[in-house]
């Protein structure tokens, strides 16, 4: 009986000793979760203040802004709608008066898009980037999630967004927005 009692007391001691680490673990996890919530609540909407990047042919683009630039249009090019996206922006590029100094900059959304464009016979007449700066990418991707593109001044000061992924997008509508 005494041995049994002793064994039970050992169990009690072990259980009692286990309480403190568990309480510490709970405290630590709660702190981590609170830090996490605080961090995510501070997340800001990034702005594209540069169009610098590496294009689908591996060239560094827009390291310095062109002196004749008056507008930049940044938009995502999706692999899932690659042909339609390229066709539309080609139409926009072909109708843009050169003296207006508008630069179109597409961002490929994945490596399949990069391979499709770099491997095609026909090169787009506007820049398509395979790699971009994180801040600009977050801004472009965030806008594209809403079907929008970003419009900036020739000095890359953000101007506004406009929706171009509409059920029936037209080059004319985009031109109106860009030249507004």
């Amino acid at each position, binding site marked *: 009986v005494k041995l049994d009692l002793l064994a039970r007391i050992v169990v009690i001691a072990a259980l009692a000793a286990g309480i403190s680490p568990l309480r510490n673990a709970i405290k630590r*996890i709660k702190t981590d979760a609170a830090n996490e919530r605080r961090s995510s609540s501070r*997340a800001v909407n990034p702005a594209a203040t540069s169009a610098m990047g*590496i294009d689908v042919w591996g060239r560094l683009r827009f390291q310095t802004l062109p002196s004749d630039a008056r507008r930049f249009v940044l938009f995502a090019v999706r692999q899932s709608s690659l042909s339609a996206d390229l066709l539309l922006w080609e139409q926009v590029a072909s109708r843009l008066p050169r003296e207006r100094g508008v630069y179109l900059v597409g961002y490929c959304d*994945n490596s399949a898009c990069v391979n499709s464009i770099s491997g095609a016979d026909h090169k787009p007449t506007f820049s398509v980037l395979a790699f971009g700066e994180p801040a600009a990418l977050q801004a472009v991707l965030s806008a594209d999630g809403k079907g929008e593109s970003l419009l900036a001044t020739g000095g890359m000061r953000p101007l506004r967004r406009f929706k171009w992924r509409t059920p029936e997008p037209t080059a004319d509508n985009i031109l109106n927005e860009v030249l507004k």
Partner: protein
Amino acid sequence: MIERLLAQTVRLAVTILIGVHLLLLARVAIERHQLSVARAHFDTAAGIPFQSVAVGGGRVPPGTSTSGFALRFASEKCPYSRSDLLWKSLVGALRARNIPIVILLPSADQAFAPFSIIPVDAPQVAFVSPEWASRYPLTLTPTTIIFDSDHRVVWHREGVLTMSDVKSAERVLISATMR
């Protein structure tokens, strides 16, 4: 009589302590779930290799594609990035395990001057693929992320590091598959 009373008390104590343990374990499970919910804005599924280009257009040295690595999203222009003293401690822990460190800049014009970067030999990356960027909401500097060899986020912190952050990162480094 006394022995029986003692035995009953001990039995009761064991029962109560087991109950307390069960409650605490349930609480740990609930808190862990809350933490995973709070971290859900970071994609922790197995990811894609980190494809990047350094400031100036050069390729980043290999290492990040074959093993786990630590990514520090920071900027010379950000006072919090510059004053994050505990980053140096975490660098020490990473270096002790030969884990590559890459500095990712929000934009190329926010590069650190030579010798002001920690660690001094870390490559500074300015360009990433949209595919990779879309998985990680990098908007705050400094943000520190540790990827395992499957390109999975095993640890991350947004903001200046605390001592408990460094300790938790070290705990993760012990259990994560980095090679």
